[in-house]
């Protein structure tokens, strides 16, 4: 039995102006269903690259990504889009909401890219969106527009959007990067809630140590590799503590 998510010898090489950048140098990784994984590590260590390879956004140069035993990088564009649409809920700091749509429509948006959604579907979809928003304490703002929301509220809407198609995996790259510590805690609590109540597998990338309080697994990356011998993750990240 293979793991829920499994990567084998994952490599990603970028060519920038004749120079090779090895963003991933051969990653073997297993993530169990229902895990709450936080990736940490220095800037440029390859976190975003790894996570987007797993999410079907960045094609690896070498190696495989198996989700439930299926190699996602063997899918064509349509199948891969379907995979992203159905299996994964994305939440990136910069993947903002569409300003022209209200909260409700932003949340149901991934569904318009799912094949054949009829009128009946659209009603059930809306009530589902409303119940998600209610759960995230955003019921009052269903008809607001993104510009009328605070950063934390926008994040909740994005979380609801990530959940609308009932994906098994939530992938978030620095979802709290620009939030103050209190709001960040709130958002992390929501993720924790999703992990528990909805049984979603969470894959988070963050620089913030606040995540360490809630994460089930912490993976530290360095130079495109996973930092294996991990006595203290905090230590590993904070190797450059400012000393006199």
């Amino acid at each position: 039995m293979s793991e829920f998510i499994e990567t084998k010898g994952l490599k990603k090489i970028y060519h920038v102006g004749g120079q090779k950048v090895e963003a991933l140098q051969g990653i073997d990784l297993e993530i169990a269903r229902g895990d709450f994984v936080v990736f940490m590590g220095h800037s440029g260590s390859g976190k975003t690259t790894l996570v987007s390879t797993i999410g079907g956004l960045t094609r690896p140069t070498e190696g495989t990504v198996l989700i439930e035993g299926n190699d996602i990088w063997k899918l064509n564009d349509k199948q891969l889009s379907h995979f992203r649409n159905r299996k994964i809920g994305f939440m990136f700091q910069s993947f903002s909401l569409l300003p022209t749509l209200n909260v409700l429509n932003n949340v149901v948006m991934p569904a318009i890219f799912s094949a054949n959604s009829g009128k009946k579907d659209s009603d059930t979809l809306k009530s589902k969106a409303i119940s998600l928003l209610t759960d995230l304490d955003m019921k009052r703002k269903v008809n607001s527009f993104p510009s009328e929301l605070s950063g934390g509220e926008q994040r909740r809407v994005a979380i609801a959007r990530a959940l609308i198609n009932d994906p098994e995996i939530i992938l978030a790259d620095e979802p709290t990067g620009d939030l103050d510590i209190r709001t960040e805690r709130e958002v992390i609590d929501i993720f924790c809630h999703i992990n528990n109540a909805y049984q979603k597998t969470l894959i988070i990338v963050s620089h913030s140590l606040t995540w360490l309080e809630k994460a089930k697994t912490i993976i530290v990356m360095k130079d495109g590799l996973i930092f294996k011998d991990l006595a203290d993750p905090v230590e590993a990240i904070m190797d450059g503590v400012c000393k006199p």
Partner: protein
Amino acid sequence: MKILRLALLELLRRPKKNLVIASSIVIAVALLTSLSIVSNSANLAIMEIIAKTGHTLTVRPAVTSAGTNPEEKNQEYKLTTSEVVLGSYIPEAAVPEIMKYYDKAIKEGWEKKGGLVSNPGIPETSLEPATWAPRLFEKAEVDGQEVIVTGIEIRKEYFVRFWWNLTSGDWPAETDVRDVNTNVSTLYTIGSDGKVTIDKTEYGVDSSGRLIAAQDKTGKAAPILKGWDDAYLGGAYAKAKGLKLGDKLTINKSEFTIRGVLEETNSADDYMVFIPLSTAQKLFNKEGQISMVSVRAMCPNCPVGDAMVELNKHVTGITAVSQLDVAGVQFDFFNMLYKFLLAVIVSTIAVGIFSIFNIVTGSLYARIREIGMLKAIGASRFQLFRIFIYEHFILGLAAGICGYVLGLGMAYILNTLLDTGAVIRITTDFLWRALILGIVCSLVAIIYPAYKLSKLKITETFRTQWEG
């Protein structure tokens, strides 16, 4: 929520940019619509005149018989009825022969076509014999200045040149100069229906150049023919000389009275002085000779071309040219104008599309972040492509509708400016064309950037957002 609605909202999100794009399409569509409506209406009007009045055939002396070079011969067919032939002549006696071949060819061609050819706006017609009018051109001194004096048989002439109108004066009464005196046998008569009966006459000119009946059947002294000194002036000539109805003119020492001034027709006629053919023949010593004959076919869709071929084959010393006459000249004029304006508009559109292309490319790259997000949440390449296509389809459709409405208005203005005299005719075809043009313009500008963007790798879209 549907992709279409998403596209519409996206479109409304950038009102200024899209307005710029839309307005250039609107202008292009409006220009093309108005131009095609006007030219179509003008052409239809011309076609109707042609259909109603029949084509005109011009018979002139063969240029080769006058001993000119082959190069000039090639020019022959470019001449129009209004053009003046000086120095070569056809004997008047050849006219019956010309008309014989003409009528025969028309009749045969007509029967070959299976009889009546129905024509818009024209009641069922039977084959009527053609009407013809001779002309004699001569350069002469008129009030001391050299002018083309044209001898015509006035009533026949204005029947053949149905577009002639008088700004002042009157046409001569029922009969022509040669049959005024009932004692003189007539060369021909024209009935009220324009039918011409040819006959023979004898006449002379007296010592002062006045036309007289050469012989009175009763043997009395020959009377001076009434109307021998009538003159009709081309509109431009009358205007330039300040001549009016009733004024006197001296042509080669003979005095004439102005009986009418013609409306301008934008042809050589405008600069001519017209006098009775018989007078002109006497005056210029060209008795029994004419410079050309115009034949007006009296049936819709007459096979005038066939007649032309027959005449050129069988009658020596002449060149027959079939043409759509004044209508044809107008036709050419509009076609030329149309082509010119079309070229201007097409280049405007090309420039327009290029600038739209730039705007679109720019605004699409500004949307990279959003495109990355849409891809990440599961939009396939094709679905993304569809968003762009829908946006620009809607834009093009709206611009097409606005352009059509504007174009209708412009058509009326253009029609007045060009003074086509045509009634504006609008069919749904113009609307369809406007809509298609609008949509195509809008889509052409977007397809390439949209295609490139939908193929963009998602991580590339991440990076631009970090950098931006």
